[in-house]
């Protein structure tokens, strides 16, 4: 792959502070050279432990940008991009910094016409893993530095027990479909990878020397292979844990129907959701009817209906970001459900969410051939 090294001074090799500084200098250059006018990035708020999302316009503000921080605070960045560009393309050139899963969900949103990539410079940020928001907060409050911890785990190539389940099984440590990638995996210094002609042009405008880097490709491939095997084993376990209605019912035992998983899901963009409509809740008549017919009924809260229904609706486009699990106030391990199931669904359609911008999602594609669901008539 093509790209450019940002830090050529060998003294800074692997210096954590320098990595952050290099990214910030890169963003600063983007603004200074007028490649973009605005940058949407995670931003350090000195008052809070979690970074906030902010659009910055002045080069000097870039010092406080923190795109590499290993946490997704609440909503994914793709939701913000969708909010900004859904109605019409943004008028000023904007650079967005996205984690790989956020970039993948942005691709899905573009396919569903919920976001527009015109005038947008997408910059993917390599992600070796991220922490649960609460773990992250706790770490910061206790004085530990999550970013350093993540970088150390990356250097030793050991992973981290505290990473979210979605991150432990993630097969997308490097964003696809972005113009540029901020590379930290498989390189000692910060490497800006150009994926598109727009990306290459940007690097040239800033005045960086473009080089080939095959070592990084190899290392990324190794990481994905290693994770893939782990993922297979874990997903098998997860599905075993959820096999059958009894186990599913137990899994959702303490769900409080808050719909947080739906709110944060980048794919759940419908303005009018069935589960928030009048049709979803059970009404008085149903309780009476069922009780008379069955003699006894369990509480009809529609939890299973909500979770399975939502799963069927979004599984073809699920990007396995695991934010549903992070958002659950009852700490239900939702990724165990949507991770493996959506993988199976996408495999059956020979589709991978967020992979190719040109592909259309299975639910909007019409298959000329019979999908093998009905018996073929002998003619």
């Amino acid at each position, binding site marked *: 792959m093509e790209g450019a090294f940002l830090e050529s001074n060998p003294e800074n090799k692997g210096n954590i502070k320098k990595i952050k500084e290099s990214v910030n200098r890169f963003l600063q250059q983007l603004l200074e050279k007028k490649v973009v006018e605005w940058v949407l990035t995670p931003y350090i708020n000195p008052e809070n432990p979690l970074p906030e999302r902010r659009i910055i316009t002045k080069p000097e503000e870039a010092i406080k940008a923190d795109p590499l921080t290993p946490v997704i605070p609440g909503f994914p960045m793709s939701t913000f991009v969708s909010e900004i560009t859904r109605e019409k393309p943004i008028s000023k050139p904007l650079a967005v910094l996205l984690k790989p899963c956020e970039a993948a969900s942005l691709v899905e949103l573009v396919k569903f016409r919920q976001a527009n990539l015109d005038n947008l410079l997408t910059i993917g940020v390599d992600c070796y893993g991220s922490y649960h928001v609460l773990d992250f907060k706790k770490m910061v409050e206790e004085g530990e530095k999550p970013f350093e911890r993540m970088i150390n785990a990356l250097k030793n190539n050991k992973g981290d027990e505290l990473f979210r389940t979605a991150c432990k099984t993630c097969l997308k440590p490097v964003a696809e479909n972005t113009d540029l990638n901020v590379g930290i995996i498989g390189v000692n210094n910060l490497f800006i990878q150009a994926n598109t002609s727009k990306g290459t042009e940007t690097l040239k405008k800033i005045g960086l020397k473009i080089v080939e880097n095959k070592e990084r490709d190899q290392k990324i491939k190794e990481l994905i292979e290693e994770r893939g095997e782990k993922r297979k084993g874990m997903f098998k376990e997860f599905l075993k844990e959820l096999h059958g209605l009894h186990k599913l019912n137990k899994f959702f035992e303490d769900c409080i129907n808050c719909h947080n998983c739906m709110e944060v899901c980048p794919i759940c963009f419908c303005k009018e959701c069935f589960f928030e409509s009048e049709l979803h809740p059970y009404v008085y008549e149903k309780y009476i009817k069922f009780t008379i*017919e*069955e003699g006894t009924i*369990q509480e009809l809260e529609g939890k299973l209906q909500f979770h*399975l229904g939502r799963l069927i609706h979004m599984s073809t486009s699920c990007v396995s970001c695991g934010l549903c699990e992070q958002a659950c106030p009852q700490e239900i391990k939702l990724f165990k459900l949507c991770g493996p199931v959506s993988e199976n669904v996408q495999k059956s359609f020979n589709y991978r969410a967020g992979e190719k911008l040109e592909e259309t999602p299975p639910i909007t594609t019409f298959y000329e051939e*019979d999908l093998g*669901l009905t018996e073929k008539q002998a003619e």
Partner: protein
Amino acid sequence: MAEKSVEEGKEKFEPVIVGFFCRWCTSEAADLAGTIRLQYPPNIRPIRVMCSGFIDPIYVLKAFLEGADGVLIGGCHLGECHYINGNYKAQTRVKVIKEVMKSLGLEEERLRLEWISTSEGLKFAEVANEFTEQIRRMGPNPLKKLKRE
């Protein structure tokens, strides 16, 4: 909801099957089957919809969760939809539902999609007989059990 007929002191399982039938084809085929006096079991509770593409997965799921033993979806043959491509949509949706049910061990055989056109009264009767027999062999929907425990 379950209908039970007492036969020589022994309870025989009568499945409840919810049918979503397209107004332009399968519903008419059901009519035709009746007109030409073909026998098919009364276990199917037909719901007439304007197009098989109208059926959101939620309604299939709702039928199962509220105690249906099987769901039969009937639509026009591919390329013969009254609304251009409704049956293609139904096909894709059913495939997603089946894949999710299979992954979670929820007996995806309880859901069946068939293309039955207006003139295929015979096929309708055959499918109805066969599907009812299949569900009878499979036994009651596990969710029903869950409700009673």
